[in-house]
């Protein structure tokens, strides 16, 4: 069955591999250049602590475009796999009636399904994995320069998580096709559910894959980047407003709060002319804040957990994919009539209740 699945799938597989080769060529040609620029500009800037301007110009414009495209591609590919390989996998056979041909060959339908899910699923993971590998390699200098790969914006565009996404999207598509039995609706449902999952996981699941680090320390006044008071300078109510940029390099910051020694938020402190008044300066505000003995509470995932989070999230999606595959194989063992049968069986009821049915024996 694996050979037959490959025979049916190989055109699409070769197209996908062809696309990967093209991407490999583009990245292979531009990658070394990006690394050269990195070595020539970003590496020395750290020596002189003068990186802001350099980083503004890195990566150079054409590479920036490629980077954006590649990140979008890594995000899109698992969804496309789910829609175009997963959803039609079984639904197409129901639609065209070929499941009646396939299921009456000499192998059980469980094996039939296992071969399809296994081969196309493995290939989906391979494609997503290779793509992510290439993009991760290519964007190495970018990650080095910015040290932000664990953050929400880019965590899902490199590393091994795309493999998990692809497996899950594929299994989701196959399951939708199995339950809905029509290709187009299955594709739509796959897209909607997968998009919802991809939206929900980074916000509600990923932060808790490993319990995040919580630190509370005296507020480093040097980290205050914005300040102010509502209703400032009038001295009658209004609230203090402090925004800081804490120095936890490369961390994924989940929560950043400035609190009073009593544990309340700093924004419950009354507004003041020192911060936000017409004559206030950074110095005057810092001096005022120092009198409040504010503390800073940070909740974050440190940069060092990048690979741990990658593995956990990949494992989570793979487990989801396995669960859905199991659902598919349970479903396929229960024999239910295909849509066509219901219609065919339902149509002639009136004919049967007539005293004399109307066969057409004469039309031989």
């Amino acid at each position, binding site marked *: 069955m694996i050979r037959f699945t490959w025979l049916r799938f190989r055109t699409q597989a070769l197209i996908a591999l062809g696309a990967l080769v093209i991407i490999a060529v583009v990245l292979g040609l531009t990658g070394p250049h990006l690394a050269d620029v990195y070595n020539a500009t970003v590496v020395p800037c750290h020596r002189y602590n003068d990186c802001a301007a350099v980083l503004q110009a890195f990566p150079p414009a054409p590479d920036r475009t490629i980077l954006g495209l590649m990140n979008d591609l890594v995000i899109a590919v698992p969804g496309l796999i789910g829609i175009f390989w997963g959803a039609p996998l079984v639904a197409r056979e129901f639609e065209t009636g070929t499941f009646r041909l396939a299921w009456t*060959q000499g192998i059980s339908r469980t094996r039939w399904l296992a071969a399809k899910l296994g081969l196309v699923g493995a290939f989906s993971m391979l494609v997503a994995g290779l793509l992510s590998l290439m993009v991760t390699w290519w964007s190495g200098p970018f990650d080095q320069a910015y040290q932000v790969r664990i953050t929400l914006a880019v965590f899902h565009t490199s590393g091994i998580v795309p493999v998990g996404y692809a497996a899950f999207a594929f299994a989701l598509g196959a399951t939708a096709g199995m339950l809905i039995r029509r290709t187009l609706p299955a594709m739509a449902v796959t897209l909607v559910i997968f998009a919802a999952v991809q939206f929900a996981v980074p916000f509600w699941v990923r932060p808790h894959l490993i319990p995040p680090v919580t630190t509370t320390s005296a507020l480093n006044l040097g980290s205050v980047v914005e300040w102010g008071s509502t209703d400032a300078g009038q001295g009658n109510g209004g609230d203090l407003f402090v925004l800081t940029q804490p120095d936890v390099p490369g961390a994924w910051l989940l929560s950043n709060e400035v609190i009073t020694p009593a544990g309340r938020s700093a924004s419950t402190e009354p507004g003041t002319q020192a911060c936000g008044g017409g004559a206030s300066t950074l110095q005057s505000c810092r001096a005022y804040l120092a009198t409040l003995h504010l503390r800073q509470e940070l909740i974050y995932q440190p940069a060092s957990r990048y690979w741990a989070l990658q593995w956990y999230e990949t494992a989570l999606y793979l487990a989801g994919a396995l669960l859905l595959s199991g659902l598919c194989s349970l479903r396929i063992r229960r024999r239910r009539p295909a849509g066509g049968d219901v219609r065919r069986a339902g149509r002639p009821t009136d004919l049967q209740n007539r005293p004399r*049915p109307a066969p057409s*024996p004469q039309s031989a």
Partner: protein
Amino acid sequence: MSAVVEAGGLGKRYRRRWALADCTLAIPAGRVVGLVGPNGAGKTTLLQLAAGLLEPTAGTITVLGKRPGVPAQLRAVGFVAQDTPTYAGLSVAGHLRMGGWLNPDWDGELAERRIRQLGLDLRQRAGSLSGGQRAQLALTLAVAKRPELLLLDEPVASLDPLARREFLQVLMETVAEHGISVVLSSHLIADVERVCDYLVVLTASRVRVAGDTDALLALHHRLSGPRRAARPYPASWEVIEESHTDKQTVLLVRTNEEILDPAWTVRPVSLEDLVLAYMSQPNDAARAGRPRLEIAS
């Protein structure tokens, strides 16, 4: 002789409607069985139950002594579905390769010989074949797995009369050559008459009559006589159909006794008469659980 298909109280319900109900049946081996009945009578359902594509709602069915759908049964049963499905994008050669990969007893030589005889191009995609060619391809796939039993659901429904005749001819040659049992459904009695030696009549989801065609024909008689001679009929008669005019009564009677009453003119029935008579019986006759005719062979 052992039964290739044996059903006991078999029923299949689609949502609220029974597509097949209380079907008890034993189809002997080595026969070409015609499953006839009007559209929607449950022929497709019965065949799909036998092929393992559907699970019964009630009762039991065994095919070649096994539960349908298990690998040991699947490899020994060739099934051609009503619309003769094939993979549109796959070449004829691709279909044969599939047959070889998925069926342990595959006879590749037989398959290629048949395709050559049919004049099909191995490189042609199944989607561009004519209906008749597709049906032949599907039959080739079913036959080349060297099954003990062939299940054919309306195999000739989509074919023109010439293609239909050719298809049945090829089928008969294959059956004769390999000694396969065949169950084929059709609502065309002429086709059944040409190829089948065993008959199952299915109407309104129930089996009305099943038996060897020659034996059935010998048991049924068309009687005509004066109206007065009507009732009561002898107890050994089962009247399948009766019609009356002012002067005359015409009956279709099942009996294994000779009809001696000179008032009746006795004529043999054709298979078509017989099938139509059973198909036009009122439904409640069958619902009341009247004894069904079973003929051992």
